[in-house]
């Protein structure tokens, strides 16, 4: 074998190994073969609200009962209730009270997961306990998950649609996420070792942290808040970090399966936190990703993206923080290839109000600057995948 042949063999080996690595490379772009695109329709639904219910909630999920009735389960935090709106009749079906004190006390509920109408898991702030309650709000069981077998702390997880992070139940195991302690100013040296996911085994009453972490390059371009969203679909979890174009697909046990570039065409560069740009102004003026959502009926993912706006003198920063002026939705196929991205009309849609149903994706039109806003109604517009 002469030198030239050896050189060629080495070169081919290097190229082949590099090619294998790019299967997980974030810059790889594949074109989806999907020919359906997310489109706004003229269909909308409305639920009447009483005096004690707000049209803003950080937790709402679609639920189909065993008798095929479709519900929107809606957390009304101020009055401490989960409301079940019947989507078929557009009427409030019933309320599940969430006691703060007494024998059925659950603490401050910030999220839930509906197993059945009479079996709901609620998650609470600052208390790593899953409460199983019935439709009357009675606590049936409690599952604490504050420490792993090897003594590591597990923080309270809230299962909610705001920055979508649903509780996932698979074969008797509950899967939740872990927020980074002090998301604005964490001890960044510890971040690469801080797991952001856990698995709770109901049978053994034990919890373990999963080997899922923030991307190590997350702060390469400066310090940014450490928030993320994660969803479950097709047997795997997909993680979307607010300031990272990529999506990360993991197996339930925490094995990285795929990294996919899912960049919004409306986001070019992320902006780092600084002394002059922080707090609500930072969130209003700078771009970031928001929810990642799996649509099990159509086997696609939706990723919400916010491009940021320039603040004008009379702008109300608080309103613009709670109700971002405009956002886009990227639709991705089950392999995380981008199908399309649509930009929604400004001052019309509430990014925090959405749910996926067999009909499509419903998005709240209760935006504070929407001229048709009625505080005593909860209104959603239907978006459908179509040709």
């Amino acid at each position, binding site marked *: 074998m002469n030198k030239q042949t050896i050189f060629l063999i080495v070169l081919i080996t290097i190229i082949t190994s590099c090619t294998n690595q790019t299967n997980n490379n974030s810059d790889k772009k594949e074109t989806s073969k999907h020919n359906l695109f997310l489109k706004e329709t003229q269909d909308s639904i409305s639920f009447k609200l009483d*005096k*004690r*219910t*707000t049209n*803003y909630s950080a937790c709402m999920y679609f639920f189909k009962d065993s008798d095929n009735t479709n519900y929107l389960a809606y957390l009304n935090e*101020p*009055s401490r209730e989960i409301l079940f709106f019947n989507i078929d009749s557009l009427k409030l079906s019933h309320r599940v009270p969430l006691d703060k004190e007494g024998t059925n006390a659950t603490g*401050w509920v910030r999220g839930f997961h509906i197993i059945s109408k009479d079996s709901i898991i609620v998650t609470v*702030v*600052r208390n790593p306990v899953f409460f199983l309650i019935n439709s009357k709000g009675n606590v049936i069981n409690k599952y604490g998950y504050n420490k792993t077998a090897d003594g590591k702390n597990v923080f309270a997880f809230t299962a909610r649609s705001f920055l979508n992070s649903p509780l996932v139940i698979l074969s008797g195991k509950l899967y939740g996420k872990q927020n980074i302690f002090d998301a604005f100013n964490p001890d960044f040296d510890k971040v690469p070792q801080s797991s952001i996911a856990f698995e709770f085994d109901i049978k053994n009453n034990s919890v373990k942290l999963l080997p899922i972490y923030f991307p190590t390059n997350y702060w390469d371009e400066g310090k940014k808040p450490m928030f993320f969203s994660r969803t479950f679909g097709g047997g795997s979890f997909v993680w979307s970090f607010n300031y990272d174009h990529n999506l990360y697909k993991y197996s339930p046990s925490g094995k990285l399966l795929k990294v996919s570039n899912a960049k919004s065409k409306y986001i070019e560069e992320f902006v780092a936190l600084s002394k002059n740009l922080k*707090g*609500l102004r930072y969130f209003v003026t700078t771009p970031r990703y928001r929810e990642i959502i799996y649509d099990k009926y159509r086997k696609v993912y939706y990723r919400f993206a916010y491009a940021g706006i320039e603040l004008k003198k009379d702008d*109300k*920063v*608080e*309103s613009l*923080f*709670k*109700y971002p002026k405009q956002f886009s939705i990227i639709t991705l196929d089950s392999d995380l290839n981008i199908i399309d991205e649509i930009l929604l009309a400004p001052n019309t849609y509430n990014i925090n109000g959405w749910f996926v149903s067999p009909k499509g994706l419903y998005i709240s039109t209760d935006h*504070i600057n929407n001229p048709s806003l009625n*505080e*005593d109604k909860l209104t959603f517009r239907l978006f459908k995948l179509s040709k």
Partner: protein
Amino acid sequence: MKTVIIILLIFLTVSCSPDLSSDELIINKLISDIDREKNMVDNGVILVLPSHGCQSCLDETIKFIKNNYKNKSLLCVVSGISMKELRIKFSDSIIDNYNVLADIEGIVYNNKIEKPTAFYFVNGKLNSKIELHSNEIDVFFDRLLEFIESK
């Protein structure tokens, strides 16, 4: 001549400006924006509650306001997006109380107050401004309660 007038004008403007710290400027603007008499809190506290931020800080401030809103040495400014939201969060009787101001115009945030903040007044002057941090919740409210109850 023109230059002399400009210099004189600058001199007059500077010398006539009250010697106010940035905190005093903020609180004066806040009081004027929220349309309440400043003498309400000549010897008391203005407690400002933004609607976003560290959740335990917000929760504890809401609890404190609910327990103490009738105290005449306390003026509470609570920020929110809508009156309905604030009425549900606090109740009608609290929101309608003269010691409580519901800010749905974004005044709190436009004055760059993004954490629960207590402005302490003694003899009509701003004595101190204390922001609530998650690791100092008990100290913050113990001090606040002691101050308003001593007035």
